[in-house]
């Protein structure tokens, strides 16, 4: 049924629901504040950790080695035995190969590295695998998308499928596409991960927020990535 809905309505990227000013800011490689995090990520990429090699020591030039990588996440990771998003994959690499402590959610380091890696796939279509070992996670995400939650008793679908393009208070409801994340959100005056954005949606419908990196958030991320199939990645996005 979801597939049918998606076929009926064209997939529209998140920035299309923003004002002309915000669109211009996102397209401007210099003024886009998210580029500060990309630059920070690039610095971290080339910097050796005290207890291990730099990202660049194994992965080399990110422009080549990381091209297209972010467009395939979230992805089932055989070594970890579960589906991880890009940030989770980077975090695992930091812990296992650089032997460092886990990167704290929404820290400048974690956002910087994920934005820098995702930036290498700018303009490339999102295509995630949802079959095989990723199937249970995808199904969980698809179910969550339809599940009414919170005091408002709303599911994702009630705003982002049936009311996209309409106005909610002074905002235009988007389709909830993940193509621009991590994005710089003007309201938060910072780059933010898709997980933070999703948690804000839980807060919006007055539901309990799942913790960062929880199975629910990863499942939703995978579902959303599949729902956005073919949409070009535009990290770092800018949102109001």
């Amino acid at each position, binding site marked *: 049924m979801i597939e049918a809905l998606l076929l009926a309505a064209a997939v529209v990227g998140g920035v299309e629901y923003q004002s002309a000013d915000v669109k211009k800011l996102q397209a401007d490689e210099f003024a886009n504040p998210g*580029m500060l995090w990309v*630059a920070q990520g690039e610095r971290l990429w080339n910097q050796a950790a005290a207890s291990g090699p730099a990202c660049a020591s194994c992965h080399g030039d990110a422009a080549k080695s990381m091209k297209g990588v972010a467009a395939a996440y979230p992805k089932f990771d055989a070594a970890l035995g579960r589906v991880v998003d890009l940030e989770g994959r980077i975090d695992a690499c930091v812990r296992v190969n650089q032997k460092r402590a886990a990167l704290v959610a929404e820290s400048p380091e974690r956002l910087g590295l994920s934005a820098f890696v995702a930036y290498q796939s700018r303009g490339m279509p999102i295509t995630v695998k949802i079959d095989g070992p990723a199937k249970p996670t995808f199904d969980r995400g698809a179910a969550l998308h339809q599940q009414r939650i919170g005091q408002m008793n709303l599911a994702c679908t009630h705003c982002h499928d049936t009311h996209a393009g309409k106005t909610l208070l002074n905002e235009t409801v988007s389709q909830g596409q993940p193509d621009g994340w991590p994005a710089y959100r003007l309201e938060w005056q910072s780059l933010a991960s898709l997980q933070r954005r999703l948690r804000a949606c839980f807060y919006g419908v007055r539901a309990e927020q799942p913790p960062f990196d929880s199975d629910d958030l990863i499942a939703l991320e995978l579902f959303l990535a599949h729902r956005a199939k073919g949409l070009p990645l535009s990290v770092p996005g800018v949102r109001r």
Partner: protein
Amino acid sequence: MLGRIQVPALVKKGEPFEVRVLVQHPMETGFRRDMNGKAIPMNVVDKLKVSLAGREVFSAEMGSGMSANPYLQFYAVANEAGEIVVEWSDDKGDTGRATAKVIVA
């Protein structure tokens, strides 16, 4: 602290050109409180100076009204090639610097 400064690839002698500056900074207003109700001290980029070939061409004193990660844009004139340097400091005393080359045609 990270910052960037941008000038056109080539500028004409004696003619104004656009300079753009972006600084990564939280610009804490001093009016916010943290999760425990404790006031977060004010910390903004209070002084910012731009010099071209050693001569000051722009300066700004900013307050709590500026957004985080401030973006500034202004015009300057160059008569000879040189380095354009932006330097700033915040209330905590942290400083930052970014440079770009100005090539005069």
